[in-house]
């Protein structure tokens, strides 16, 4: 489904990703683990289409279509969704209004009809309940004054609402309490489908207890240095990254 080949990415003139290759077949969940600063967020921003991340070499395709030539909003319309490691606060922009505008923009780009205000209200309330965000929170300016955990819940709300085809989760589990972690597991598991793929970036085995990955990749110094089954995450938890970095 998602195919990354020999990807090189520079940020601010520094090469961060140095020949990264990775493939996530449709229907699978792949986990990416790696030390701080190894390039995990760089990978997720690049996949989502951040303009100041310069792709100097390599290819990324989603179901055979070149992603790199699409603008961020076009990727969103194609069903690429990034759950941000640090979601933004957007003062002055009402949450419901923003998410509805976003949903309808995606639909419009796809040539689908807009969702009516009434249908949307029902939809967002239902998803709010699912991720544990009250109506009162949904009426506030987007993420303003939200706790770290609440912001992550807002990312999960959008995931549940947009129903994207390919999901990148950048440390969604960091800063979450146990109940929220379970909720994230439930949202992801309910969305697992033969035509949907997930790339789950995390530092901890904990999240992977809820979301069983099909494959685990270790990202170090801008490359995938090892891939394996779910047991690789457990192994990392025990002995750390050293052996893999040295071996690479």
């Amino acid at each position: 489904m998602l195919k990354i080949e020999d990807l090189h990415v520079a940020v601010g003139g520094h090469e961060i990703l140095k020949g990264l290759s990775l493939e996530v077949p449709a229907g699978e969940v792949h986990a990416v683990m790696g030390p701080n600063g190894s390039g995990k967020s760089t990978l997720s921003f690049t996949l989502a289409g951040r303009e100041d991340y310069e792709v100097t070499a390599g290819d990324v395709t989603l179901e055979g279509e070149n992603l790199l030539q699409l603008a961020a909003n076009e990727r969103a319309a194609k069903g690429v969704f990034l759950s941000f490691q640090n979601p933004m606060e957007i003062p002055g922009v009402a949450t419901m209004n923003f998410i509805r505008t976003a949903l309808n923009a995606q639909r419009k780009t796809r040539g689908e009809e807009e969702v009516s205000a009434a249908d949307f209200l029902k939809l967002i309330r239902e998803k709010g309940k699912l991720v544990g965000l009250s109506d009162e929170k949904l009426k506030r300016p987007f993420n303003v004054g939200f706790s770290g955990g609440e912001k992550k819940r807002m990312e999960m709300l959008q995931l549940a609402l947009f129903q994207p085809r390919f999901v990148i989760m950048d440390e969604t589990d960091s800063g979450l309490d146990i109940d929220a972690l379970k909720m994230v597991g439930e949202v992801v598991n309910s969305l697992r489908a033969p035509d949907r793929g997930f790339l789950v970036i995390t530092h901890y085995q904990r999240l992977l207890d809820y979301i069983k990955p099909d494959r685990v990749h270790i990202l170090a110094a801008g490359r995938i240095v090892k891939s394996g089954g779910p047991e690789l995450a457990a192994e990392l938890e025990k002995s750390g990254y050293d052996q893999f970095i040295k071996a690479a």
Partner: protein
Amino acid sequence: MAKALLLNPTAFEAGLVAAARARALSPAQSAALEAFSKTGLPHRRIEAWKWTDIRANLRDDLSSASAANDVIAPSIFGGLGAFEITIMNGAAEWSGEAPAGVTISCTPQGGPLSELASNHPLANLAFLNTDETIAINVAEGASVEKPLLIRRIAGGGAIHQRVTVKVGACSKVTIIESFDGVGRYFSNSVTEFSIESGASVERLVLQNGSDDGVETALCAVAAETMSKFHQTALLLGARIVRIESRIALGGEDAQADLRSASMLCGMRHADVTSQIDHRAKGCTTRQLHKSALKDKADGVFQGKFLVARGAQKTDARMSVNALLLSDFAEARHKPELEIYADDVECAHGSTVGALDDAALFYIKSRGLDDAAARALLTEAFLGEAFDAMPHPAIERTFRTRIARWLEAGK
């Protein structure tokens, strides 16, 4: 008889003076003419006008005054059911009866300028050129629900116009002033408020001139004990615009709340200048100015808080933020505090910046295209000046106007 004439008047200034001299002037107007003859039009070598040079932008090439009704769209405040006074090229017109508690009259010439307006060169010019002053009187204790809308439309020529508003003790009134124009004109107005104790005034300003228009509007306010003056202004600019407020909080616990936003494109220039004199104990001032500047637009803000020796417990805060939406746009801010009392809380802050790339990317990653993402953030930025206005329908009108500008660029 004008003595001590300006040393090197421009043709336009000489024309202004000659036209005034040909009129029958009251003694007060003659004095104003003499004052104007000495100073001429404000220009960049005068500190308060260094960024807004009126003299340099006024030549003898104004279009001849024509009724602009057919080219000016109906007021966007039309839906509010306001009582409307239309001032076309300086001539006022209204029909029907003023709302209960309000009397409106035209007085020839009008009394002398109020203290705060009297040493302003353009107020003097307006005063000496005005045949009729519109005098609005709000009765003591009246709570006027219906807004009063003063629609100024300029269709060419040099237009001078004066309104006085006397607001009786403990009354409440909402006054909207809109400024529209077409062609090459110079529109110069002065509005003077005298607000008695406990009264509350909501003043709203919407300015949208033409690319060739020059517009100056002074508002002078004398506010008594426990009165409130709230002002919200939205400016779309013109060739040169200056919306100026001079406010004296002369009675204890008086309050001023000034909010403004400029959204400018092309070569437009808008200047928001204010001076608030805190003359009595316990007065409160809040001021917020925002500007979003596209293309080669020029946004000026000059704000001064003056706190007199006896004005203890003054609480005054000013904040000004500019958003540059192009590399060629320019924002110039001059916040000033001049404080002669020791037990006061005064603060000001000024920022100039661009849209936040990280926020833009977040919004685009959710499906909005670049233009829509920028518009969303710009709208949110400007919108802060219109948060929680007392009159929700007026707030909606302003927000609609902002959205239209973001969509259509004008």
